[in-house]
């Protein structure tokens, strides 16, 4: 089984803070990391390889520094790393990004499964997976929490829904996006780290991909950011102070007067 995992480099937003004075985002000391959801996709690919044999390739589109996520993937045990890089890819929305990734997947060639994370924590759209499936003309299974079976030309997964899960069967090749319930990602091994040190990604620009430049990056993006601004904060109200029992009684009174409690 040949598996391609799409991974993205993102700023570690857990550590992002807004500077109260300037209102700007402070990235001082904020590291760039592999999108956390993509780590679950990588782990699942490695487990499938362990169960069925084959190879796992990681694919990323991003600026030169994004090669670091491929190195992280190699350290985890991934076999190959491909990097789509060039100014022509920059500023792409999900349509342009998924088009570029589809071109990358096609250039890698033979494959049975493409895995994505549920969403990227910087954009949070969860759109790239299904759009990639459409560009490749493949079925898409989203929010997968478990792979039940996979074999010759067929896969059965559990897809999360609002009130449980659907057990879904699909033909292969297919594109799948995974949620964090699916597994617990491993840590890099010493051997993997050694391999990562000497790893050199295969890098492709638009020309190498044979991609239509008009469909890439900012130019190929139908959506445009009109403005970016700070959410208007809801204002705080009344603080209830005093002895705990007294405060609780006053709050109970307020809640009763709202008519929300029986």
């Amino acid at each position: 089984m040949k598996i391609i995992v799409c991974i993205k480099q993102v700023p570690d937003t857990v550590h992002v803070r807004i500077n109260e004075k300037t209102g700007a985002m402070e990235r001082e000391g904020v590291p760039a990391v592999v999108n956390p959801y993509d780590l679950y996709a990588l782990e699942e690919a490695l487990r499938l390889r362990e169960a069925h044999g084959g190879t796992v390739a990681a694919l990323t589109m991003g600026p030169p520094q994004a090669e670091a996520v491929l190195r992280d993937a190699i350290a985890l045990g991934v076999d190959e790393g491909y990097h789509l890089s060039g100014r022509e890819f920059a500023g792409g929305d999900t349509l342009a990004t998924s088009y570029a990734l589809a071109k990358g997947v096609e250039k890698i060639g033979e494959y049975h499964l493409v895995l994505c994370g549920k969403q990227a924590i910087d954009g949070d759209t969860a759109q790239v997976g299904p759009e990639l499936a459409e560009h490749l003309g493949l079925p898409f299974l989203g929010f997968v929490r478990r792979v039940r079976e996979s074999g010759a030309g067929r896969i059965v997964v559990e897809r999360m829904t609002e009130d449980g899960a659907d057990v879904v069967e699909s033909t292969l090749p297919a594109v799948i996006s995974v949620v964090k319930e699916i597994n617990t990602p491993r840590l890099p091994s010493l051997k993997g780290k050694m391999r990562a040190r000497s790893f050199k990604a295969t890098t492709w620009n638009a020309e190498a991909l044979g991609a239509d430049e008009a469909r890439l990056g900012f130019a190929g993006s139908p959506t445009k950011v009109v403005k970016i601004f700070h959410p208007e904060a809801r204002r705080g109200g009344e603080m209830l102070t005093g002895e705990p029992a007294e405060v609780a009684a006053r709050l109970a009174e307020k809640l009763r007067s709202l008519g929300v409690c029986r």
Partner: protein
Amino acid sequence: MTTVRVLPEQCTGCGECVPSCPVAAIEMRGPAAFITDACTVCGICVTVCPVEAIEMQHVAPAARPCEPCRGVWVFAELHRGRLVGVARELMAKGRQLADRKGTELTALVFGAAVEAPARELVALGADRVLGAEHPVLELFHDDAYVAACLALADGQRPEIMLCGGTVLGRAFFPRLAARLDTGLTADCTSLEIDEESGILLQTRPAYGGNLLATIACPDRRPQMATVRPKVFPAGASDPARIGEIVIRRDWDGRLHSRTKVLEVLEEVVQTVNIAEADVIVAGGRGMGAAENFALLEQLARVLGGAVAASRAPVDAGWVPYARQVGQTGKTVCPKLYIACGISGQVQHLVGMQSADVIVAINKDPQAPIFSVATYGIVGDALEIVPLLIKALGRP
């Protein structure tokens, strides 16, 4: 090709843009800022620069003429044959947008039997309902949904298309958008028509909810957006309203699907859907342990509400994910939200700050949750909650 560039004559060298860049692509070189190759063209620095010395340039391809298009379309999802809540909310929003544009509102509805929901959609404001009836449409199969949608559209292109940001919508709409070769904005929190251009302005959280971005799709149609449940209010239903209903039942093998739902698993823990609750009692890391959520269950029982949580207790395994409120959980809009031991990080606030009344109980007077609370109490939740339960029990 696009670049962000600094206008050296205008740049004052203040350096404010440097820390704003999420990928560290701005350096001070001599008296002015310089943008390195690491730039991802996100445009944040453009908005941060106090003297407008950074600009985004792009050599646009010859603008393609907008296809002739008309109308606002809402995809109305069914769950077990009934309209989901967000479908009602989108009908109200869709009606508003259609009126603003002076055009008609069309609802799309797919399922095994769509006659009754179609009539309901007319009552909710549809001028026209396009229904697709077939057993394969009862559950979500992406191939069949896209095929049914294109068949119903029959060459017509709507100007605007909306869908709920549900598990189904978040898989179906991106696929449809890519097929139609147009843009899609996920999880919008505001949708407005621009006065001048008539374009749909779609606002959504960005960078983990720290910022909001307004997005437009200026030269392709339809302009597509998904909206999460409970973001917009549902409108009133008027059974006397009149609208056209067209239901297609004859598909002639055109709804082939490469995926097949073998089984539907329902899970007991999810019996209370927090997105639908009027009263929510939520706990955070400050509750200290899984056992202490029993206190919140008790309070919720007294108030006739449901228990929810911030992400920290979910990550700790105290509470199932279905109960998480926030950016990566559910958006809720109850009449009353009681936050116990929740600090109120922005990712949590985006999921609950439109509640009518917010009560916060937290040990730390500086906790950001107090900045959104209608009533705040500085104290130990483990002490206050039992006292509150007692006080509520005694009128």
